[in-house]
């Protein structure tokens, strides 16, 4: 069997007395789009933060590309090819759209300890950045200051930044959060085009998006994996239905 791109082994994390990640074991195969769903407060973002290195698990291992990265700080994981988007839009608002993406290109192309030369006119940075913007449909907004973009455009920019990192694994933390119906639809189209190019771990609330995109789905409830399987299996699982219906009745 091929070595999975990402393997989470028995991750545990608690804040104070609250268990937010409980014995989570997940494997992500190459080229797979794996979605993690779960009701609010299930610990989805906490999980993503552990994978990307913003917080450290209490116990368990995170293996990325065959290498144990559990103790590695976030920048080094990113340098290994682990890209992420944020649930709350995280861009550089005073930079232009193009510069936001070019910075991501810069991150993976050579040293940034270069003190001379105008970075904003380096073709080697701008070209791949434009290509990434093109893929998410933001090419015509390249010169706009990122902070002035509409909400859905910011989500798209977030995606473009992740793309420009040429990731070996893309972590997507609720990319549709707050986007309108049309914007969501556009993002789904973009994501389905990207599917297969690199593995993605998608955390999402929007069930339409999840079932349209995911190869496999894991259901997270109270920090614990309830079940994993293909969309059909998950859809039919009575425990999932119970968990979701229960959640809605509250």
């Amino acid at each position, binding site marked *: 069997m091929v070595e999975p791109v990402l393997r989470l082994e028995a991750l545990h994390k608690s804040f104070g007395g609250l268990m937010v990640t409980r014995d989570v074991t997940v494997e992500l195969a190459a080229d797979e789009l794996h979605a993690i769903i779960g009701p609010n407060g299930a610990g989805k973002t906490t999980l993503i933060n552990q994978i*990307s290195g*913003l917080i450290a698990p209490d116990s368990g291992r995170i293996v990325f590309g065959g290498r144990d990265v559990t103790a590695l*700080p*976030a*920048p*080094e994981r*990113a*340098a290994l090819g682990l*890209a*992420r988007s*944020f649930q709350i839009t*995280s*861009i*550089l*608002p*005073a*930079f232009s759209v193009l*510069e936001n993406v*070019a*910075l*991501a290109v*810069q*991150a*993976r192309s050579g*040293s*940034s*300890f*270069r*003190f*001379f*030369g*105008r*970075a*904003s006119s*380096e073709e080697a940075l701008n070209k791949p950045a434009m290509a990434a913007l093109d893929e998410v449909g933001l090419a015509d907004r390249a010169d706009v200051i990122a902070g002035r973009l509409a909400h859905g455009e910011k989500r798209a920019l977030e995606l473009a*930044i992740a793309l420009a*990192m040429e990731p070996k694994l893309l972590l997507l933390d609720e990319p549709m959060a707050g986007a309108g119906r049309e914007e969501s639809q556009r993002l789904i189209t973009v994501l389905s085009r990207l599917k297969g190019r690199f593995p993605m771990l998608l955390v999402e609330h929007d069930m339409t998006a999840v079932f349209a995109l995911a190869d496999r789905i894991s259901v997270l409830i109270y920090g614990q994996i309830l079940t994993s399987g293909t969309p059909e299996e998950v859809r039919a699982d009575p425990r999932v239905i119970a968990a979701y219906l229960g959640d809605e009745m509250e």
Partner: protein
Amino acid sequence: MMFVAFALFPIAATFGAEAYLIDLFRRIMIFAIAALALDLLVGYGALVSFGHAAFIGIGAYAVGILAASNVSDMIISLPLAIGAAALFAYLTGTICLRTRGVYFIMITLAFGQMAYFFAGSLAPYGGDDGLTLAMRSTLLGFAPFKHDLLFYYIVLGCLVGCYWLCRALVISRFGRVFRGARENPTRMAALGFDVFRYQLTAYTISGALGGLAGFLLANATDFVSPAYMSWHRSGELIVMIILGGIGNLNGAIVGTVAFLLLGEWLSDLTENWEMIFGPLLVVIILLARGGLLGLAAQMAAWYRRENILSVGDFIAAVGRYLRQLARRTIKSTLQTSRSRSRG
């Protein structure tokens, strides 16, 4: 451009034969170098250093101590002045950059104060009283600082060089990462940048430029004292760059010129010049966002909006503005009892 004005200034001054003016402008330019160094951190990295005078002091003391030991060649003293300041910046930076915001301001102040008291305890070198420079720096037997005009242009050269260096830094790959770290450190980390290393580098460079300013200052005043490092000096540097408008290297220079020139002029005018200068600062801050450069931009926009062509237009427009201001003030006063939310 400002530099041309600086360059032409001595020629104009020779007609009036005001040697002290040359002296004043030389001092202004030296502080402008330090202000540029500080603006690099504050304006582009949101790292408000409240101990920047320490770097000036270290540079100055390097010159003073070497001169006291009969070493005056700048082949030795210049690299040592810059190097010592850079080293101090590097060492303290590793600690300071662990903190953020106001805590960063205060920890840089702490190190500035330590340097200040340390200098005051250097009994062999004058202690609190400071020490008079035995001789100005020389270069392989020449004495370029002996000639006032030559010294003036050397300082101008250094200022232009620093300006150019800072500009290049800001727009370089490095500068892009450094600016990004101010905007959103979390995002930068997720991109794979170790923000700390970039900030430490910038901090060290800024300290080195401060050392250069200190080197020049010691030679310009023939004197070195702990007062160069007092927190007042650090505070003044901050005021200079805010006054000019931060995040814009021109602002650092404009602010320095305005601050020192205004101080000089007002103190000639009246003994109690601070009673005018203080409120003036307050008014500038209240009226203008982005310091003097911001004010100038606002004024230009206002000129265009009000379509001012003659003195009469100007007076009429000022009248309109004042009436508006009065109306707004009254309104906000009436609203005092109403609650206001903060974003």
